[in-house]
């Protein structure tokens, strides 16, 4: 029976806590009697018969007819799927998307459907590399569709292949992939890693254009999303749900397929990363020491390769298909069931170790902007109810935060770091002054459309992701980061955790309460 999430009150006998530090780890001893560590629930049991569950779900959707009855000869069928940003880390093959899409294609073939397109719903993310597409879809699907131009990646900058569906009552424009918009049936294949994902957030965003995305990917909307993991308290989700209504009224019929995963995140020899430190056996300690020492001597490039090669053993815990909102309601509950941890009250200082990966640097480099986004955008928002840290409190991150950028994946991030952050860190100011230039830069557009680069505007979205946190907290400190880079982000560098606490005392006093959120594995703090 998997154990639920757990809040450990630190006392003198508590062993040091493992913090992620990019492609490495640190052990930190948190002050006794005023610190606590939140541990994620243990992984729920996975479904044994995954293919059977997929088939059952396709034949028994929620609020829609079974999939075979929606398929007919001569129809235009489009299958869209979540891109490389999910799941994290990538799952072992066969990926769920492959398993689902293979069954959908079998049903389509049985129904005589011969006009099928498969689209990576990447919005303004980077195009996936061939090996990533093969990993997600399997070689059979890739080899059958890609050479014939029937498997491709959504191009949000191709004006000839975008369709305008309408405007919400708040003036938000919905423009999505034309093939998807004009299809008789759009099947969306989702992996719901966190409660933020799925529902209209997948369908109305993954196939959308900048014209649509700017209506909710902006500082005002992000600041008012409390939090991204709670759809009902998130302006981002309210906006996408309004867009979903327009899609439903004016767009294709959508057959949504959503899956949830358990939090079995780390394979051997990294399974100690999921364990509670006081439960480490000698083998776990040895593995930790071996990993930590050898990583310290490993060149960063190689360390990155090792980590990005990790394939997580996480497995499917649920699958539901059918009407978008009805499906998503069930999915969200399943995510909460796996990830929620009840936490009593807020804290003065929230600490978090930033790992090597986030949705936007798969097989890539976590540059300083993504460090900020992961910490203040994602981890800060892993809550329901209230943020873990009180207003005016301090967030302490651990990460090397080197000024390193992947020139192919993140070209506009380099310019954002050099030019925009040199001018302002205020998301509202940069949104007014700089965003349009980057969104419309012809070179970034060219790179997004023809190489594997994130869209020119993407670093802005990453910065906006941290808007709520930036407004909420009094100070952000990064331990172990490159000092000049940390300062450029507008944060305070510290060499050690004790130095960080000392610096924080100017903001929160000398005996603050401290909470460490030990993630990954993923969790959501249900803060009372």
């Amino acid at each position, binding site marked *: 029976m998997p154990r639920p999430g757990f809040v450990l009150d630190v006392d003198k006998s508590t062993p040091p806590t493992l913090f992620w530090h990019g492609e490495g780890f640190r052990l930190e001893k948190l002050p006794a009697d005023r610190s606590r560590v939140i541990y994620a629930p243990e992984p729920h049991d996975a479904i044994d018969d995954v293919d059977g569950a997929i088939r059952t779900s396709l034949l028994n959707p929620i609020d829609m007819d079974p999939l075979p009855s929606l398929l007919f000869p001569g129809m235009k069928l489009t299958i869209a799927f979540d891109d490389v940003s999910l799941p994290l880390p990538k799952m072992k093959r066969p990926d769920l998307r492959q398993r689902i899409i293979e069954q959908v294609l079998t049903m389509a073939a049985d129904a005589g459907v011969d006009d099928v397109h498969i689209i990576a719903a990447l919005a303004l993310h980077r195009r996936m590399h061939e090996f990533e597409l093969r990993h997600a879809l399997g070689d059979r699907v890739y080899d059958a569709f890609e050479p014939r131009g029937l498997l491709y990646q959504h191009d949000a900058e191709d004006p000839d292949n975008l369709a305008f569906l309408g405007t919400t009552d708040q003036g938000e424009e919905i423009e999505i992939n034309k093939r998807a918009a004009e299809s008789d049936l759009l099947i969306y294949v989702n992996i719901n890693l966190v409660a933020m994902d799925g529902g209209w957030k997948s369908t109305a965003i993954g196939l959308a254009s900048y014209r649509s995305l700017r209506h909710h990917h902006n500082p005002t909307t992000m600041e008012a999303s409390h939090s991204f993991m709670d759809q009902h308290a998130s302006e981002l989700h309210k906006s996408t749900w309004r867009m979903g209504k327009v899609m439903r009224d004016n767009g294709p019929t959508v057959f949504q397929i959503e899956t949830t995963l358990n939090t079995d995140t780390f394979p051997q020899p990294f399974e100690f990363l999921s364990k509670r430190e006081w439960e480490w056996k000698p083998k776990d300690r040895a593995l930790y020491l071996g990993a930590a020492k050898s990583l310290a001597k490993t060149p960063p490039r190689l360390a990155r390769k090792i980590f990005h090669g990790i394939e997580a053993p996480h497995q499917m815990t649920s699958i539901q298909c059918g009407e978008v909102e009805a499906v998503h309601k069930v999915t969200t509950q399943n995510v909460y069931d796996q990830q929620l941890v009840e936490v009593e009250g807020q804290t003065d200082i929230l600490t978090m170790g930033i790992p090597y990966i986030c949705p936007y640097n798969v097989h890539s480099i976590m540059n300083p902007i993504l460090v900020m986004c992961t910490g203040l955008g994602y981890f800060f928002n892993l809550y329901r109810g209230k943020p873990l840290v009180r207003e005016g409190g301090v967030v302490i991150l651990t990460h090397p935060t080197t000024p390193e950028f992947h020139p192919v994946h993140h070209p506009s991030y*380099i*310019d954002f770091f*050099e*030019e925009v952050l040199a001018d302002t860190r205020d998301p509202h100011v940069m949104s007014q002054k700089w965003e349009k230039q980057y969104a419309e*830069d*012809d*070179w970034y557009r*060219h790179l997004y459309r023809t190489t594997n680069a994130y869209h020119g505007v993407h670093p802005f979205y990453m910065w906006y992701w941290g808007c709520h946190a930036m407004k909420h907290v009094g100070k952000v400190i990064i331990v172990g980061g490159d000092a000049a880079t940390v300062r450029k982000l507008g944060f305070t560098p510290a060499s050690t955790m004790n130095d960080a606490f000392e610096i924080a005392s100017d903001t929160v006093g000398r005996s603050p309460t401290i909470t460490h959120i030990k993630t990954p594995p993923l969790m959501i703090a249900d803060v009372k």
Partner: protein
Amino acid sequence: MKALQVSRSVPRLGMARIASAISPITATKLGPLAYTSVDAPELPGPGWHRVRTRLAGICGSDLSLVEGHASLYFEDWVSFPFVPGHEVVGELDDGTRVILEPVLGHEARGFAPPFDGAAPGDGDDYAHLSTGQLQPGIQTGFCCSTGGGWAPEFVAHETQLHRIRDDMPDERAVLVEPFAGGIHAALLAAPTVAARQDPSTPAIVAVLGAGSMGLAAIAGLRRYVPDVRIIVGARYPHQRQFAKEFGADVVVAPDELPRAVRRAAGCHMVGDHLSSGAHVTIDAVGTSATVADCLRITRPRGRVVLLGMPADVTLDLTGLWHRETELKGSYTYGTEHLPDGRTARTFDLAIETANELRAERLLSATYPLSDHVDAIAHAATAGRRGAVKIAFRI
């Protein structure tokens, strides 16, 4: 009198060149420069004055010479032994303070000027620089007949002297000559700026290097070339600060300059070249690497102005040929035709600019001649040490 003098010594030049890879101090000690007794130069004739040096700057071209890196091109344009020093503020016999315009022009050598009112640097025939009543020498500071600023006194022709007001401090005046060089380079950008394809948006002018000459070029661009967006690549924080104060719109580290120019131009990057780029790029450094960098970031049919004195450089000129880029040398100063239609002497513009910007802020340290080893080492490592201009105080 005791002065610094450069003798023709091939072995010493060779040793200096090798030693400069180790340290500037070693290069200076082993090289052709010596602190020695020299005779004060004779006045060559009417119109000549004796000048007592107050301050004399150390220039990049002086460093090249001392470290053995100067090109053999100058072999026929200088006369040994000579006293270096061409950035000079001094005093005449009657106590009048003057700034030296060091080019030994037509009139200084006993020839008629190329046109009425010509400045010493004007004209398109350089024969006079190695003939006439003086030994060969492009400037004071490279001619054995005149002496130079790195000595208590030297001689200068009336056409080389600019009398300055009492309210102009020596520390400002010694920067006028490098400012004139930088302003001249800036004005060489003007024709390309004026002829650009799209006059509705500012021209992009990039400046690579922000030592004293680069900073002077920036100041010259801002003051005298209208409608330009100035983007500067400067290595050290104090240089970046001055560049901003002198009028640069964007200042970045040198390795960020291509991206900064790309952003301003809104162009693509093809390989390591920008598809378009700056209308004009001013190279205030002058190495193979910086000239190549400038060619890469200058748009087709644009102009690269070579302000920093180069020596032997190795360049792949295919890009220059393909892009029809102009490579234009910028040497000293003379008479300028400004974009606003005025004609002015560069030195007058430099005095005006130095006064307005309080150029003395760039003078970081002064040394007596006897401490020339330390002075030259400081000048050679100025950027790293937070300095801009080093001078001798006599």
